[in-house]
């Protein structure tokens, strides 16, 4: 009998727990430890943030589902890691603290045979002074509650515009090293379309602000893609869309401070500038959760487990951009010191960024951190679960399942406006996610044909279909496993 503990119940943690439960007999125990009571389908937060989808449509409570499926669920947060146990406990464990109910505040040693750390990122709003969701006219769409607040803020500005007041809207990244430009990109296009729907578009000036060097970088160093019968750079595609929708842009901007309706930033030229706004949605930087780890003698061994995020089988050797390769990226997401610990999804420490690092003339790092969206999060979680299942069944370590982001495709179906007949979406696929300049030297590290872009109504239908398919899958309804990650 084995006990597998999964920390986190987001896309990655939930996928891992679901597959483990389906493929392992009931004599093996699956435990999910998460401070969140609900599962949320994060990609649909965009529609919550424009008031076109209720938060209830993108979430469901975890406890009843896990009870029904035989998954032990603790609504608690991980505090620290003891991968060797301690003087009193011989098994490895995670010290966890309950966050609700009678046990609130109580700590428990959750022992394990295998540990999957799927805690995702900490939304590091503190890294940017004044960037607080719901304050200083800034909002976020990173969670469903944030997105709901964002809609309330946006709706207020829309009503003011209907009364004749002009407004400035600023959307993008809220830190010099933020990631998730794709979510902000979706949001700016959805907001623009909603303003047209409310017939106030001419009252608004919409501006994109980002730490990207070029439009369409998306933290993936941009891409060369097939677009219809043409081959186009992602920067050209996004520029075409922004021009078409009369959206201005500010690039290479490291936002460092927010005041009421005012964003302070430094650009790559080293200029210190400000941009005013009546409504802003700025993605914060992501960071690790600051977990500590201890050995059985209570010595601090945090550096063996964490490098911000969790250390896995990546090559963390520091080297210049020109020497980066896909081989640097992890394949099994296994911690090299403690082989029964894995970190799929956003919880693993990337070896480096994907976008080229750049500094301002003042020496400030301004470039996107690497994104890890829902699709690679799900794929890496499933392969980690499969390796654990194989190891348990064989009685020895098995790492047969591998999935490097340098040998994995991803689809980004970016909503560009909601509506069954008026909606739009930008469907982009990228193969591989991390460019492989050795395999595809003449096409910027990506395979043309498998890296393509399409704009149109079908993209909206596709995003809506994915929403329903993945909610069905997450609820573990009949044959849910037939839907790929």
């Amino acid at each position, binding site marked *: 009998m084995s006990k597998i503990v999964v920390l986190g119940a987001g896309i990655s943690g939930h996928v891992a727990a679901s597959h483990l439960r389906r493929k392992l007999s009931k004599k093996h125990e699956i435990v999910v430890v998460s401070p969140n009571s609900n599962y949320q389908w994060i990609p649909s937060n965009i529609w919550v943030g424009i008031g076109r989808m209720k938060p209830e449509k993108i979430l469901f409570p975890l406890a009843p589902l896990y009870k029904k499926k035989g998954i032990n669920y603790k609504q608690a947060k991980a505090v620290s890691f003891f991968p060797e146990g301690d003087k009193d406990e011989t098994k490895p464990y995670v010290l966890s603290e309950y966050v609700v109910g009678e046990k609130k505040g109580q700590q428990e040693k959750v022992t394990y045979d295998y540990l999957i750390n799927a805690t995702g990122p900490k939304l590091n709003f503190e890294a940017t002074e004044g960037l607080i969701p719901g304050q200083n006219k800034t909002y976020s769409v990173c969670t469903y509650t944030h997105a709901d607040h964002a809609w309330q803020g946006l709706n207020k500005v829309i009503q003011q515009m209907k009364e004749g007041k002009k407004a400035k809207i600023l959307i993008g990244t809220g830190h010099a090293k933020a990631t998730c430009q794709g979510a902000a990109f979706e949001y700016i296009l959805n907001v623009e379309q909603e303003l047209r729907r409310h017939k106030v578009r001419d009252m608004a000036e919409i501006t994109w602000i980002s730490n990207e060097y070029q439009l369409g970088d998306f933290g993936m160093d941009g891409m060369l893609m097939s677009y219809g019968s043409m081959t186009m750079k992602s920067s050209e595609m996004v520029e*075409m869309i922004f021009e078409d929708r009369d959206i201005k842009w500010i690039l290479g901007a490291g936002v460092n401070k927010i005041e009421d309706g005012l964003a302070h930033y430094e650009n790559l030229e080293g200029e210190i500038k400000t941009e005013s706004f009546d409504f802003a949605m700025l993605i914060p930087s992501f960071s690790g959760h600051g977990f500590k780890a201890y050995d059985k003698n209570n010595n601090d061994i945090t550096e063996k487990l964490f490098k911000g995020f969790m250390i896995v089988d990546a090559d963390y050797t520091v080297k210049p951009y020109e020497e980066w390769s896909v081989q640097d990226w992890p394949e099994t997401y296994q911690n090299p010191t403690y082989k029964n610990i894995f970190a799929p999804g956003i919880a693993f420490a990337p070896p480096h960024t994907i976008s080229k690092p750049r500094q301002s003339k003042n020496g400030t790092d301004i470039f996107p951190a690497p994104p890890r969206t829902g699709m690679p999060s799900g794929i890496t979680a499933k392969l980690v679960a499969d390796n654990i299942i194989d190891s348990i069944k064989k009685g020895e370590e098995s790492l047969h399942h591998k999935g490097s982001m340098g040998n994995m495709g991803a689809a980004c179906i970016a909503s560009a406006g909601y509506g069954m007949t008026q909606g739009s979406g930008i469907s982009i*696929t990228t193969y591989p996610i991390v460019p492989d300049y050795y395999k595809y030297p003449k096409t910027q590290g990506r395979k043309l044909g498998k890296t393509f872009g399409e704009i149109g109504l079908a993209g909206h239908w596709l995003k809506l279909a994915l929403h329903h398919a993945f909610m069905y899958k997450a609820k573990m309804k009949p044959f849910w496993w037939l839907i790929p990650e």
Partner: protein
Amino acid sequence: MTQRISKYQRFKMMNPILQFFKFIYLSIKIMIIVAGGHGGTRKTNH
């Protein structure tokens, strides 16, 4: 380099009949790319 979207392109992008077929095409194409497999990189490239 900027290319605005022409009226004809926009018509194609928003025409429900054309887009229905595009939806089928995209669904299959994305499924092939994404579900088409993944793997390691360290023993295959060099």
